Protein backbone atom coordinates (compact mmCIF):
# COMPACT_ATOMS: atom_id res chain seq x y z
CA UNK A 1 0.00 0.00 0.00
CA UNK A 2 1.46 3.30 -1.05
CA UNK A 3 0.84 6.65 0.59
CA UNK A 4 -0.20 9.62 -1.48
CA UNK A 5 -1.73 12.27 0.80
CA UNK A 6 -3.90 14.77 -1.02
CA UNK A 7 -3.56 18.42 0.03
CA UNK A 8 -6.70 20.40 -0.73
CA UNK A 9 -6.30 23.93 -1.98
CA UNK A 10 -7.21 26.81 0.33
CA UNK A 11 -9.39 29.28 -1.54
CA UNK A 12 -10.96 32.48 -0.26
CA UNK A 13 -14.20 30.48 0.06
CA UNK A 14 -13.58 30.20 3.84
CA UNK A 15 -14.76 33.79 4.35
CA UNK A 16 -18.31 32.73 3.45
CA UNK A 17 -18.24 29.32 5.14
CA UNK A 18 -19.71 30.70 8.36
CA UNK A 19 -20.95 34.19 9.42
CA UNK A 20 -18.16 34.38 12.04
CA UNK A 21 -15.54 34.63 9.30
CA UNK A 22 -17.42 37.42 7.56
CA UNK A 23 -17.78 39.31 10.86
CA UNK A 24 -14.03 38.90 11.37
CA UNK A 25 -13.23 40.21 7.89
CA UNK A 26 -15.50 43.24 8.46
CA UNK A 27 -13.60 43.93 11.70
CA UNK A 28 -10.28 43.72 9.84
CA UNK A 29 -11.64 45.88 7.00
CA UNK A 30 -12.84 48.53 9.49
CA UNK A 31 -9.22 49.52 10.19
CA UNK A 32 -9.03 51.07 6.70
CA UNK A 33 -11.65 53.63 7.68
CA UNK A 34 -10.03 54.27 11.06
CA UNK A 35 -6.68 54.74 9.30
CA UNK A 36 -8.36 56.98 6.70
CA UNK A 37 -9.89 59.16 9.40
CA UNK A 38 -6.53 59.45 11.19
CA UNK A 39 -5.00 60.56 7.87
CA UNK A 40 -7.74 63.20 7.52
CA UNK A 41 -6.82 64.55 10.98
CA UNK A 42 -3.16 64.80 9.93
CA UNK A 43 -4.18 66.70 6.77
CA UNK A 44 -6.28 69.03 8.97
CA UNK A 45 -3.27 69.74 11.21
CA UNK A 46 -1.14 70.43 8.14
CA UNK A 47 -3.73 72.89 6.77
CA UNK A 48 -3.93 74.57 10.21
CA UNK A 49 -0.16 75.10 10.18
CA UNK A 50 -0.44 76.78 6.78
CA UNK A 51 -2.51 79.69 8.06
CA UNK A 52 -6.18 80.80 8.46
CA UNK A 53 -7.04 80.66 4.73
CA UNK A 54 -5.83 77.07 4.37
CA UNK A 55 -7.72 76.09 7.55
CA UNK A 56 -10.95 77.70 6.29
CA UNK A 57 -10.56 75.83 3.00
CA UNK A 58 -10.16 72.58 4.91
CA UNK A 59 -13.34 73.28 6.93
CA UNK A 60 -15.20 74.06 3.70
CA UNK A 61 -14.03 70.80 2.16
CA UNK A 62 -15.28 68.87 5.21
CA UNK A 63 -18.82 70.07 4.47
CA UNK A 64 -18.91 68.49 1.03
CA UNK A 65 -21.50 65.66 0.70
CA UNK A 66 -18.75 63.13 -0.06
CA UNK A 67 -16.92 64.13 3.12
CA UNK A 68 -20.11 63.79 5.21
CA UNK A 69 -20.77 60.38 3.67
CA UNK A 70 -17.19 59.30 4.48
CA UNK A 71 -17.60 60.48 8.08
CA UNK A 72 -20.83 58.50 8.52
CA UNK A 73 -19.31 55.33 7.09
CA UNK A 74 -16.11 55.80 9.12
CA UNK A 75 -18.18 56.34 12.27
CA UNK A 76 -20.17 53.13 11.66
CA UNK A 77 -16.99 51.13 11.07
CA UNK A 78 -15.18 52.57 14.08
CA UNK A 79 -18.13 51.78 16.37
CA UNK A 80 -18.17 48.22 15.00
CA UNK A 81 -14.38 48.00 15.44
CA UNK A 82 -14.49 49.28 19.04
CA UNK A 83 -17.48 47.20 20.13
CA UNK A 84 -16.11 43.94 18.69
CA UNK A 85 -12.69 44.48 20.30
CA UNK A 86 -14.10 45.61 23.65
CA UNK A 87 -16.30 42.52 23.76
CA UNK A 88 -13.21 40.35 23.23
CA UNK A 89 -11.15 41.91 26.05
CA UNK A 90 -12.22 39.38 28.74
CA UNK A 91 -10.46 36.66 26.73
CA UNK A 92 -7.15 38.53 26.72
CA UNK A 93 -7.46 39.99 30.22
CA UNK A 94 -9.66 37.68 32.31
CA UNK A 95 -10.62 40.21 34.98
CA UNK A 96 -14.15 41.02 36.17
CA UNK A 97 -15.77 44.04 34.49
CA UNK A 98 -12.86 44.46 32.05
CA UNK A 99 -15.25 44.95 29.12
CA UNK A 100 -17.39 47.41 31.10
CA UNK A 101 -14.22 49.31 32.12
CA UNK A 102 -13.35 49.76 28.44
CA UNK A 103 -16.84 51.08 27.65
CA UNK A 104 -16.63 53.42 30.66
CA UNK A 105 -13.24 54.69 29.48
CA UNK A 106 -14.64 55.21 25.98
CA UNK A 107 -17.62 57.16 27.32
CA UNK A 108 -15.44 59.28 29.67
CA UNK A 109 -13.00 60.17 26.86
CA UNK A 110 -15.83 60.99 24.46
CA UNK A 111 -17.49 63.29 27.02
CA UNK A 112 -14.13 64.96 27.79
CA UNK A 113 -13.53 65.55 24.06
CA UNK A 114 -17.03 66.99 23.54
CA UNK A 115 -16.48 69.28 26.55
CA UNK A 116 -13.13 70.44 25.14
CA UNK A 117 -14.82 71.07 21.77
CA UNK A 118 -17.24 73.38 23.56
CA UNK A 119 -20.40 71.26 23.23
CA UNK A 120 -22.50 72.08 26.28
Amino acid sequence: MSRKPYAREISSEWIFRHPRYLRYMVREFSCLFIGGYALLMVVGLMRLSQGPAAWEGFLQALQAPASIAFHLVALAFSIYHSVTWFNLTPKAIPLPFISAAHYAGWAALSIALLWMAGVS
Partner: protein
Amino acid sequence: MSERMVELEVLRYNPETDQEPRFQRYSVPCREEWVVLDALNHVKENLDATLSYRWSCHMAVCGSCGMMIDREPKLACKTFLRDYQGVIRVEPLRHFPIERDLVTVIDDFMAKLSRVKPYLIPKDEKALEAGEYRQTPAQLKRFKQYSMCMNCMLCYAACPEYGLLPEYIGPAAIALAHRWNQDSRDAGRDERQEALAAKEGAWECSFVGACSEVCPEHVDPAGAIQQVKIRSTVDWYLEHLMPWLKK
Protein backbone atom coordinates in the same frame (compact mmCIF):
# COMPACT_ATOMS: atom_id res chain seq x y z
CA MET B 1 -38.66 3.53 16.92
CA SER B 2 -38.98 6.09 14.16
CA GLU B 3 -36.65 5.82 11.21
CA ARG B 4 -36.02 8.19 8.37
CA MET B 5 -33.79 8.13 5.32
CA VAL B 6 -30.84 10.50 5.48
CA GLU B 7 -28.70 11.37 2.49
CA LEU B 8 -24.99 11.58 3.22
CA GLU B 9 -22.56 13.07 0.75
CA VAL B 10 -19.14 11.81 1.80
CA LEU B 11 -15.81 12.93 0.38
CA ARG B 12 -13.93 9.85 -0.83
CA TYR B 13 -10.28 9.59 -1.75
CA ASN B 14 -8.37 6.43 -2.50
CA PRO B 15 -4.64 7.24 -2.84
CA GLU B 16 -4.11 4.09 -4.92
CA THR B 17 -6.65 4.85 -7.62
CA ASP B 18 -7.82 8.48 -7.35
CA GLN B 19 -6.09 11.58 -8.66
CA GLU B 20 -8.33 13.77 -6.51
CA PRO B 21 -11.18 13.38 -4.00
CA ARG B 22 -14.79 12.99 -5.12
CA PHE B 23 -18.14 12.97 -3.34
CA GLN B 24 -20.16 9.79 -2.94
CA ARG B 25 -23.83 9.65 -1.89
CA TYR B 26 -25.25 7.16 0.58
CA SER B 27 -28.88 6.77 1.65
CA VAL B 28 -28.93 5.66 5.26
CA PRO B 29 -32.00 4.59 7.30
CA CYS B 30 -31.42 6.53 10.51
CA ARG B 31 -32.97 6.47 13.94
CA GLU B 32 -33.98 9.62 15.79
CA GLU B 33 -31.13 9.41 18.32
CA TRP B 34 -28.38 8.71 15.78
CA VAL B 35 -25.32 10.89 15.37
CA VAL B 36 -23.33 11.24 12.14
CA LEU B 37 -20.89 8.58 13.36
CA ASP B 38 -23.76 6.06 13.65
CA ALA B 39 -24.68 6.77 10.04
CA LEU B 40 -21.06 6.30 8.93
CA ASN B 41 -20.89 3.02 10.85
CA HIS B 42 -24.08 1.91 9.12
CA VAL B 43 -22.52 2.69 5.74
CA LYS B 44 -19.35 0.80 6.65
CA GLU B 45 -21.20 -2.25 7.97
CA ASN B 46 -24.00 -2.50 5.42
CA LEU B 47 -23.36 -0.44 2.30
CA ASP B 48 -19.67 0.13 1.62
CA ALA B 49 -16.93 -1.56 3.65
CA THR B 50 -14.23 0.48 1.90
CA LEU B 51 -15.17 3.75 3.65
CA SER B 52 -12.34 4.85 5.97
CA TYR B 53 -12.65 7.17 8.97
CA ARG B 54 -11.25 7.43 12.49
CA TRP B 55 -13.29 6.86 15.59
CA SER B 56 -12.96 5.22 18.95
CA CYS B 57 -15.04 6.15 21.99
CA HIS B 58 -18.37 7.35 20.52
CA MET B 59 -18.76 9.68 23.53
CA ALA B 60 -16.78 12.87 22.82
CA VAL B 61 -13.80 11.85 24.91
CA CYS B 62 -11.15 10.52 22.50
CA GLY B 63 -11.26 13.29 19.90
CA SER B 64 -10.74 10.90 16.96
CA CYS B 65 -13.85 11.51 14.85
CA GLY B 66 -13.36 15.19 14.00
CA MET B 67 -14.60 15.96 10.47
CA MET B 68 -16.29 18.70 8.47
CA ILE B 69 -20.06 18.28 8.72
CA ASP B 70 -21.87 20.70 6.45
CA ARG B 71 -18.63 22.73 6.27
CA GLU B 72 -18.25 23.11 10.04
CA PRO B 73 -15.63 21.19 12.05
CA LYS B 74 -17.51 18.82 14.38
CA LEU B 75 -17.10 15.57 16.25
CA ALA B 76 -19.15 13.01 14.32
CA CYS B 77 -20.11 11.33 17.62
CA LYS B 78 -21.61 14.54 19.00
CA THR B 79 -23.47 15.75 15.92
CA PHE B 80 -27.07 14.60 15.76
CA LEU B 81 -28.59 13.84 12.36
CA ARG B 82 -31.91 15.27 13.50
CA ASP B 83 -30.33 18.75 13.58
CA TYR B 84 -29.81 18.69 9.81
CA GLN B 85 -32.14 19.04 6.86
CA GLY B 86 -31.50 17.66 3.38
CA VAL B 87 -28.21 16.19 2.24
CA ILE B 88 -25.51 16.19 4.90
CA ARG B 89 -22.05 16.81 3.52
CA VAL B 90 -19.26 14.98 5.34
CA GLU B 91 -15.63 15.84 4.57
CA PRO B 92 -12.27 15.27 6.25
CA LEU B 93 -11.02 18.03 8.57
CA ARG B 94 -9.97 21.12 6.64
CA HIS B 95 -6.35 22.24 6.47
CA PHE B 96 -4.95 18.72 6.84
CA PRO B 97 -3.82 16.54 3.92
CA ILE B 98 -6.18 13.64 3.20
CA GLU B 99 -4.70 10.20 3.80
CA ARG B 100 -7.79 8.29 2.63
CA ASP B 101 -11.49 9.21 2.63
CA LEU B 102 -12.17 10.97 5.97
CA VAL B 103 -8.78 10.12 7.45
CA THR B 104 -6.32 13.03 7.56
CA VAL B 105 -2.54 13.22 8.03
CA ILE B 106 -1.99 14.71 11.47
CA ASP B 107 1.83 14.57 11.63
CA ASP B 108 2.09 18.37 11.51
CA PHE B 109 -0.08 18.81 14.60
CA MET B 110 1.76 16.07 16.50
CA ALA B 111 5.13 17.72 15.75
CA LYS B 112 3.85 21.11 16.87
CA LEU B 113 2.34 19.69 20.03
CA SER B 114 5.66 18.17 21.07
CA ARG B 115 7.44 21.49 20.38
CA VAL B 116 5.50 23.25 23.16
CA LYS B 117 6.39 20.56 25.74
CA PRO B 118 2.85 19.95 27.01
CA TYR B 119 3.81 18.17 30.20
CA LEU B 120 4.86 19.04 33.73
CA ILE B 121 8.36 20.51 34.00
CA PRO B 122 8.78 20.97 37.77
CA LYS B 123 11.41 23.28 39.21
CA ASP B 124 12.77 20.53 41.41
CA GLU B 125 11.90 16.92 40.79
CA LYS B 126 10.37 15.51 43.97
CA ALA B 127 11.13 12.00 45.17
CA LEU B 128 8.14 9.68 45.09
CA GLU B 129 8.24 9.34 48.90
CA ALA B 130 7.91 13.13 49.25
CA GLY B 131 4.28 12.76 48.21
CA GLU B 132 2.09 14.53 45.69
CA TYR B 133 2.33 18.08 44.39
CA ARG B 134 -0.51 19.83 46.17
CA GLN B 135 -2.76 22.46 44.70
CA THR B 136 -5.55 24.68 45.97
CA PRO B 137 -8.89 24.81 44.11
CA ALA B 138 -7.99 28.36 43.02
CA GLN B 139 -4.70 27.15 41.51
CA LEU B 140 -6.53 24.33 39.73
CA LYS B 141 -9.08 26.76 38.32
CA ARG B 142 -6.35 28.75 36.56
CA PHE B 143 -5.69 25.94 34.07
CA LYS B 144 -8.50 23.40 34.36
CA GLN B 145 -10.50 24.42 31.28
CA TYR B 146 -7.40 24.14 29.06
CA SER B 147 -6.74 20.62 30.33
CA MET B 148 -10.05 19.53 28.79
CA CYS B 149 -8.43 19.69 25.32
CA MET B 150 -8.47 16.23 23.73
CA ASN B 151 -6.44 17.04 20.60
CA CYS B 152 -9.39 16.63 18.24
CA MET B 153 -7.97 19.37 15.97
CA LEU B 154 -11.34 20.96 15.20
CA CYS B 155 -9.73 24.29 16.12
CA TYR B 156 -7.09 23.82 13.42
CA ALA B 157 -9.79 23.09 10.85
CA ALA B 158 -11.67 26.24 11.93
CA CYS B 159 -8.62 28.54 11.97
CA PRO B 160 -8.11 30.42 8.68
CA GLU B 161 -4.64 31.51 9.85
CA TYR B 162 -3.53 27.89 10.04
CA GLY B 163 -5.06 27.22 6.64
CA LEU B 164 -3.22 30.13 5.04
CA LEU B 165 0.05 29.86 7.00
CA PRO B 166 0.71 26.21 7.85
CA GLU B 167 3.83 27.17 9.88
CA TYR B 168 1.51 28.64 12.52
CA ILE B 169 1.79 26.49 15.63
CA GLY B 170 -1.98 26.71 16.08
CA PRO B 171 -4.68 27.00 18.75
CA ALA B 172 -4.59 23.65 20.59
CA ALA B 173 -0.78 23.58 20.93
CA ILE B 174 -0.77 27.11 22.38
CA ALA B 175 -3.73 26.37 24.67
CA LEU B 176 -1.97 23.29 26.03
CA ALA B 177 1.31 25.15 26.51
CA HIS B 178 -0.65 27.84 28.36
CA ARG B 179 -2.33 25.13 30.44
CA TRP B 180 1.10 24.07 31.80
CA ASN B 181 2.36 27.64 32.12
CA GLN B 182 -0.66 28.40 34.32
CA ASP B 183 -0.01 25.36 36.53
CA SER B 184 1.42 26.23 39.96
CA ARG B 185 3.50 23.00 39.96
CA ASP B 186 5.21 23.87 36.70
CA ALA B 187 8.38 25.88 36.05
CA GLY B 188 8.81 25.24 32.32
CA ARG B 189 7.55 28.51 30.83
CA ASP B 190 11.00 29.59 29.60
CA GLU B 191 11.41 26.30 27.75
CA ARG B 192 8.04 26.72 26.00
CA GLN B 193 8.49 30.37 25.27
CA GLU B 194 10.77 29.82 22.27
CA ALA B 195 7.95 28.11 20.37
CA LEU B 196 5.17 30.32 21.77
CA ALA B 197 6.67 33.81 21.39
CA ALA B 198 8.00 33.17 17.88
CA LYS B 199 6.40 34.78 14.85
CA GLU B 200 4.79 31.48 13.91
CA GLY B 201 3.75 31.11 17.55
CA ALA B 202 1.04 33.20 19.22
CA TRP B 203 1.81 36.27 17.06
CA GLU B 204 0.50 34.61 13.92
CA CYS B 205 -2.99 34.67 15.47
CA SER B 206 -5.16 37.58 14.35
CA PHE B 207 -7.93 36.68 16.81
CA VAL B 208 -10.61 35.31 14.51
CA GLY B 209 -11.89 33.41 17.55
CA ALA B 210 -13.24 30.48 15.54
CA CYS B 211 -11.11 27.99 17.53
CA SER B 212 -13.01 28.72 20.74
CA GLU B 213 -16.38 28.67 18.97
CA VAL B 214 -15.94 25.18 17.50
CA CYS B 215 -14.24 23.54 20.50
CA PRO B 216 -16.44 20.62 21.61
CA GLU B 217 -14.98 20.78 25.13
CA HIS B 218 -15.49 24.54 25.55
CA VAL B 219 -11.79 25.17 25.92
CA ASP B 220 -10.95 28.75 25.02
CA PRO B 221 -7.79 28.56 22.88
CA ALA B 222 -8.39 32.10 21.55
CA GLY B 223 -8.24 33.41 25.13
CA ALA B 224 -5.10 31.39 25.86
CA ILE B 225 -3.37 32.78 22.75
CA GLN B 226 -4.14 36.40 23.67
CA GLN B 227 -2.89 35.81 27.22
CA VAL B 228 0.33 34.33 25.82
CA LYS B 229 0.71 37.47 23.68
CA ILE B 230 0.31 39.71 26.74
CA ARG B 231 2.82 37.68 28.78
CA SER B 232 5.30 37.75 25.88
CA THR B 233 4.88 41.52 25.53
CA VAL B 234 5.55 42.00 29.25
CA ASP B 235 8.64 39.77 28.87
CA TRP B 236 9.90 41.93 26.01
CA TYR B 237 9.44 45.20 27.89
CA LEU B 238 11.07 43.85 31.03
CA GLU B 239 14.02 42.58 29.01
CA HIS B 240 14.54 45.78 27.00
CA LEU B 241 13.49 48.52 29.41
CA MET B 242 14.49 46.98 32.72
CA PRO B 243 17.32 44.58 31.90
CA TRP B 244 18.68 44.92 35.45
CA LEU B 245 15.68 42.89 36.64
CA LYS B 246 17.06 39.86 34.83
CA LYS B 247 18.90 37.46 37.04
